[in-house]
């Protein structure tokens, strides 16, 4: 059931890569076919998924390298399923929006499919070593995708990305090995791993390695410097995958391997993590305000939104964690539409500079539909109700408020700052007077519109009916929280008030 999510893209990558005489159009069609099969498979999985079951479903087990305890063990639960869906969907959209003037198309599509396979594998694997394997495997295709099809500073950006994420990998591998070797029965199997019996200090050290490792991937301040370069230099499609899919591996790992495996240590570290989340949110939002490049602005906005997820994970209430999962999905959708539209604007207008862009909302000469959707995307990111970003942010904030009131309020302020930079972006890019002498932009093709329209529809639908987004993860989250021992620290001053009434 689950293996195809990994194997179809791998085989598809081989098919695209070795198909004789690959023109951009043909390679794209093959890749779309492969991605469509994966996407349909994901839909089928969604339909078969038993929402009320909090545990792993559709588990698969094949013994692989016994001495290393590395086994092929897959499973999916409410935490990974929404992310798997996002992975399949965004891959499909990225391939669909692939340009017809692409250089080395076979290589490109093959790499994208490999990324898809790697991420899917990581979300599915229930063996720590297997997870690590997938986690590291994607680095290579991503490195190549940035380094070959990127912008001017692509080699620098790609190298930076590679080094940072490699360090992240080492830390995580170290933590995993420590977890396995220090526990009584050495194992890498997720469900039989017991770390609760370790001394708290050991747990804290292991947790620190995991948090730092995944924080690089997410990324959180101050480990984020690879992100603006990588997101900006990568082509829009690759940036979508980087921000929409790869970064989610970090947040997923944080919940799966940090929160769920080290409840005690997590509870100890939570106040610090909450502050870190708030700092990331402030830092990302303020940096975004100062940017002149719209793609860089969107990249920094991503750092800010990741701060909310960390805050929610730190609070670890059922509400905040459901919020965190939905924020992961919401952020992926919103980031994808923003990067896609920014990419469209860049290809049509030829610049990403805020000082040069102007008046794109103009109905005849400008890009009205693109601008309209950009407004939608920006406002969704700023957390306007009725769009998917709001409900996710709101659950995060409401869930975290009783545990950490001050960091939560700081995040509310950041939501205002998000509005500030998106208003700057929209005012400069879409509003204003278009210069009729220079405005001879190529027409936006349906191939470029469709992905944005699909994303916009999802953002709207999930915003108006959030249950479709929230219901997947709730039982799993409840199970995670139920095993969470320490709730003593979650009594805030405000809730004390209500108890005394």
């Amino acid at each position, binding site marked *: 059931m689950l293996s195809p999510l990994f194997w179809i893209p791998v085989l598809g990558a081989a098919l695209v890569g070795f198909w004789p005489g690959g023109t951009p159009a043909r390679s794209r069609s093959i890749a779309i076919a492969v991605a469509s099969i994966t996407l349909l498979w994901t839909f089928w999985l969604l339909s078969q998924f038993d929402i009320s079951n909090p545990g792993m479903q559709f588990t698969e087990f094949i013994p692989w390298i016994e001495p290393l305890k590395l086994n092929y063990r897959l499973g999916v639960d409410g935490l990974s399923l929404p992310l798997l869906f996002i992975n399949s969907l965004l891959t499909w959209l990225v391939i669909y929006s692939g340009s017809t003037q692409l250089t080395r198309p076979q290589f490109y599509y093959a790499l994208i499919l490999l990324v898809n396979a790697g991420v899917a594998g990581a979300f599915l694997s229930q063996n720590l070593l297997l997870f690590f394997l997938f986690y590291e495997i994607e680095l290579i295709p991503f490195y190549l995708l940035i380094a070959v099809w990127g912008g001017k500073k692509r080699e620098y950006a790609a190298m930076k990305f590679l080094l940072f994420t490699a360090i992240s990998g080492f830390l995580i591998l170290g933590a995993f090995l420590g977890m396995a070797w220090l526990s009584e029965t050495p194992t890498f199997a997720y469900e039989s791993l017991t770390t609760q019996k370790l001394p708290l200090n050991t747990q804290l050290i292991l947790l620190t390695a995991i948090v730092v490792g995944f924080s690089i991937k997410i990324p959180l301040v101050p480990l984020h410097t690879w992100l603006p370069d990588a997101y900006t230099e990568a082509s829009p499609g690759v940036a979508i995958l980087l921000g929409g899919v790869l970064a989610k591996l970090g947040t997923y790992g944080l919940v799966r391997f940090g929160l769920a495996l080290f409840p005690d240590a997590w509870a100890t570290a939570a106040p610090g993590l909450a502050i870190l989340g708030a700092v990331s949110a402030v*830092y990302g939002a303020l940096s975004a*305000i100062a940017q002149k490049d719209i793609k860089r602005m969107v990249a920094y906005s991503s750092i800010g939104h990741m701060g909310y997820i960390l805050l929610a994970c730190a609070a670890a209430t059922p*509400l905040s964690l459901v919020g965190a999962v939905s924020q992961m999905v919401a952020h992926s959708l919103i980031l994808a539409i923003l990067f896609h539209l920014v990419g469209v604007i860049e290809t049509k207008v030829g610049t990403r500079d805020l000082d040069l862009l102007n008046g794109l909302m103009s109905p005849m000469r400008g890009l009205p539909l693109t601008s309209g959707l950009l407004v939608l995307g920006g406002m969704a990111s700023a957390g*306007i*109700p009725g769009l998917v970003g709001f409900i996710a942010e709101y659950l995060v904030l409401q869930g975290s*408020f009783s545990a950490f009131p001050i960091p939560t309020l700081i995040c509310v302020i950041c939501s205002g700052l998000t509005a500030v930079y998106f*208003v700057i972006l929209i005012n400069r890019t879409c509003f204003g007077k278009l210069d009729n002498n220079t405005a001879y932009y190529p027409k936006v093709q349906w191939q470029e519109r469709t992905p944005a329209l699909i994303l916009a529809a999802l953002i709207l639908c999930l915003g108006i009916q959030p249950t479709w987004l929230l219901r997947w993860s*709730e039982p799993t989250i409840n199970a995670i929280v139920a095993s969470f021992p320490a709730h003593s620290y979650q009594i805030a001053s*405000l809730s004390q008030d209500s108890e005394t*009434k």
Partner: protein
Amino acid sequence: MSHVLLQTVWLIPCYALTGVILSIPWSPGIIRYTGPRPAGYINLLMTLTAFIHGLLALRATWDLPAQQLVIPWVNVAGLELSIPLEISSITVGVTVLVTFLNLLAQIYAIGYMEMDWGWARFYSLLALFEAGMCSLALCNSLFFSYMILEVLTLGTYLLVGLWFSQPLVVTGARDAFLTKRVGDLLLLMGVLALLPIAGTWNFSELAEWAKTAHISPTTAALLGLALIAGPMGKCAQFPLHLWLDEAMEGPVPSTILRNSVVVATGAWVLVKLQPVLALSPLVTSVTVLVGAVTAIGASLIAIAQIDIKRSLSYTVSAYMGLVFIAVGTQQAEVALMLLLTYALAMALLVMSTGAIVWNGITQDLTQLGGLWSRRPVSALSYIVGAFGLLAVPPFGCFWALLQLADRLWTNESWLFWVVLIVNGLTAFSVTREFGSIFAGKSKAMSQRAPEVHWPMALPMIILMGLTLHVPLLLWQWQLLPDWTTLNITAAVFLVSSSVIGCGVGSLIYLNNNWPKPVKLGYQPLQDLFAYDFYTPQLYRVTIVFVVGLVSNIISAIDRYLVDGIVNFVGLATMFSGQSLKYNVSGQTQFYALTILFGVILLVITMTWPLLIRLSLVLSP
């Protein structure tokens, strides 16, 4: 039948939303074939449907107790978010008022937007506002009210930014959005904090809870201050008032709606929250203080404006300030009555002046004049609107202001004087505007200014009729005070303040011999009012400056410090590798030396414990 109408009252906002969806096809592509107008007509039809439905539902709900209707929305992790609707004659009545005013605004827009291509956008945004306000009226939950206010903030941004190619429009839209958003987010903080304390967002339950709640004064104060921040932004109260003035760059039909009912959304939420606010004396005092300062300050600013629309916009802030005073002094019913009477009068005033904006050459008050004979309908509308707005018996606002003044008379007499002053200043202000536009001799700029055509004149006439009938309606609804309990003194004071305001205004502005432009004795004071207490500059040197500075500093730190360290580590690695390569020289002696050094180092480290003991032995 009536039961069905009441149970389907939630459809009223949905009609408008349907209009929004149906006008999507009139995005630029299809306009080439049909022109932009069908989108407008569709929305007009939808609003008419909503109006009729509301009217029938109002009949059905008359004399019935309030009913609750719950629409499930989200239920997640122990948090149940269902949309509670309150169906009472007040809430349904508000939807009727909103749909009615929107209907008139849309008819007005047929004329006003005659030459515009952006009909689909404009009408669907008006419909969004209609839907938002109707659902706000029906909705009985703070959380959903917050959501609606937030969506309307976005709506304001887009509606003010309708003519986005003009620079002033762009900055106006930006400021409207960000100012309101500041208020909204503070409100969100209140919303977040309220749930753990009160356990509900339902306004009726909150009122029940507030009766018995014991929370610490600090919490109550912080909570209340957060909760009034949202309405302060919406109602354009000091210091969040600037946006309303700048929003005047938007099209007039949207101004009709904005000045009359959109600003009142904040007041509506404030009225609903009044029991919670009353928990903290500090909050009520702040509410009253904000209202009083805004009311007086904004009426003074209004007098110093020379733009036909801006002058009115400050009057809006002033009246909303009066509503704040009413809520702060626990007079929710008076606040609602004032909102009703005010909304109709203000809509009429905006329609009348909007006509001049539309086909006059200028909207500068100092260059207009003598339009009385050319624009009789507009002039009459203006007079009726002004009478409706001021404390002039027997028109609408008189009764509302009288009730307000009556309560203040006994409890807080300084506020009574505030109301009087505001009324007097507003009377002067509207008389001044009337005199500048309609009276006197016609000037160069007002030579060619014919009366507007029927789509704009019709709504004016209808609204004029309604405004004149407001006292009858109030009488019908038994909202007028009994003759026996009427506070004659307060009424006399109120009326004399109107008379003095209008009198002085007429003396100066209906008088051709009085030299114009009129100067206040002291120029800096006049500038202070004319430039809106220098609020834009104040924003610029405070919040805008701070955010800009901090973001630039953070960005610089990010680029040079955080990223700098990373790049330095990279460079250092490269450099050390580059320098070490010179060690690989190929000479045997050099390698032998290295080996020797290595061996010595190794031997020392391995025998270190031994060596230490040796040294202890050697040097006792």
